[in-house]
């Protein structure tokens, strides 16, 4: 089964509501991205899934049971929730061994995950000497220790170099292909677009989208780039209800609300010569910005100033 189910899940800290009555269900065999701006409640939801935080209301279960009630938690869920959740005085290997001991997992498996995550020689060093990237690898090694059916990764690529980022992506895809449930959070849509099959987008503690990536993409408005020397005539021909036009330069228009076929037909009817007619694919980044625009809690000063003008 390997299903994570959240029902009306709520977490409040005093007067602040971090997670506001969300419900979702994650099925095995695919990577589900958990996306949202900083402070949207992603980490809190993941912490509640593994029992680190207690929900104020609602439930989150793994295969119908709270995480703590599973006989073999490390074999049920592997979680990377905080790259720094280790004792800095221990070596990487010692950290993995103390976790393995709780479930009687062999030292051979510890060595396997050390190899798998590329920790190698670093496993002998004390964790306080680790870079953020090495800490991430150690966290992933700990998550893989029990060869679990469900994997929960909170911002797993933070601090990783490009090779590490690629490795995490392919690992997440591979784990999902093996029939595991993979739940990955990020605040970067570009990252999710290369990893996830399905997205849950969170804003200020609420789900604002829960759909396959393809569906999110297709729901975007179609834009078409048109280039002509008769730009004023073309603008007149296209200027009808539901169509918006943006002049990019003296010969280029960006048209929203009309498909390329209709634009070409109107140009022909009015005798306008087109030099270019290019459909613009709506990117996930665009969709994400559109979805979360009203839910961003922290904005940079520059952006605020721009908006204030």
């Amino acid at each position, binding site marked *: 089964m*390997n299903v994570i*189910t*959240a*029902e*009306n899940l709520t977490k409040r800290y005093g007067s602040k509501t971090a997670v506001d009555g*969300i*419900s*979702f*269900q994650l*099925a*095995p*065999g*695919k990577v*589900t991205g958990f996306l949202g701006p900083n402070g949207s409640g992603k980490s809190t939801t993941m912490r509640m899934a*593994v*029992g*680190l*935080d*207690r929900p104020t209301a609602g439930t989150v279960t793994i295969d119908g049971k709270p*995480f*703590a009630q*599973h*006989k*073999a*938690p*490390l*074999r049920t869920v592997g*979680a990377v*929730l*905080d790259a*720094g*959740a*280790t*004792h*800095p*005085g*221990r*070596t990487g290997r*010692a*950290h993995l*061994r*103390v*976790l393995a*001991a*709780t*479930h*009687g*997992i062999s030292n051979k498996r510890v060595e396997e995950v050390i190899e798998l995550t590329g920790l190698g020689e670093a496993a002998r060093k004390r964790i306080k000497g680790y870079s953020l990237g090495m800490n991430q690898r150690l966290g992933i090694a700990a998550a893989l220790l029990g060869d*679990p*059916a469900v994997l929960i990764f909170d911002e797993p690529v933070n601090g990783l170099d490009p090779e590490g980022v690629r490795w995490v992506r392919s690992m997440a895809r591979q784990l*999902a*292909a093996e*029939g*595991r449930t993979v739940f990955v959070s990020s605040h970067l849509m570009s990252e999710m677009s290369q990893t996830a*099959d*399905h997205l849950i987008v969170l804003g200020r503690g609420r789900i604002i989208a829960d759909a*396959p*990536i*393809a*569906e999110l993409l297709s729901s975007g408005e179609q834009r078409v780039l048109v280039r002509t020397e008769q730009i004023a005539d073309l603008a007149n021909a296209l200027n009808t209800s539901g169509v918006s036009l943006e002049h990019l330069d003296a010969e280029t228009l960006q048209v929203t609300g009309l498909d390329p076929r209709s634009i070409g037909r109107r140009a022909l009817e009015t005798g306008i010569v087109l030099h270019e007619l290019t459909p613009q694919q709506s990117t996930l980044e665009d969709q994400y910005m559109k979805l979360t625009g009203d839910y961003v809690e922290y904005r940079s000063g520059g952006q605020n100033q721009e908006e204030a003008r």
Partner: protein
Amino acid sequence: MTPNLNTASSARPPAYQVDPTLSGVSFLGTFRSEFAKLKALRTSWWLSIVTIGLGAFIAGAVAFAYQQFAGDFSTNALDMAVQGQTGSFFAMILLGSLGVIAITTEFTTGAIRSSLTAVPRRTTLLSAKALALVVWTGLTTVIMVLIAHVLTALIADPLGLGDIVTDGEIALMYAKTWLVVVLTVLLGFGLGTLLRSSAGGIVVLASIMFVVQIVLSILMGVTDGAAWVEALIQVEYMNLVEGFINPTAGEYAFFPVLDPGPAAVGLLVWTAVPLVLGWLSFTRRDS
């Protein structure tokens, strides 16, 4: 709200199955894990080595001083054995601090989140940690008590090496010394679990051991020996330790001392209160 079942992929692989015959989390495994954590902590080794070293040094110094002035006053084997264990007071604060640190470092470093994802049943994790701590500090205390006994017996005449097995009173006093150190470790552990702060836990432990006694002594003088102050002094932690360990404490103590039985109950209450409050906090608060 009805949950949405993801339906993105048309051909999904069959769900991965975990082999149900593989071992799960167990108390013994968790104890092993917690003992390994203590072994890997440098502070554990340093505090234990200093405890044993200080216990041996104090025992040797006390026995040597007695031997130098043996002609001026005489004592019996039990009194000599009690004096030889003076280092146990340092063991209480040093190993009590280890009790605090054993849990607070998990919180201050964030390692508690890793521990709880492996062992999410918090009572199991906390009790395994407490047991590992008792085994570690218990062994350290046994070594300290034995070395202190050997040194005292070798230097000071009234105490013989074999008295530890032939003299029931001496053996009982050593057992009580061991128990008091271990209870103080658990007191520190309870404070650490409750406060989640190394500095806070150690300061409160040191205050319980050294400051409360001084404050009560001053109050005794200020109130001209008020009955309520006398009652408080009787249940003050170090006074209970004295009453429980030292069979002759009542003969020379400045303040009234409880008999060993009630003193033992008092010490258990002192230990149980922070432990229970710490457990309640640990099982209910977010990590």
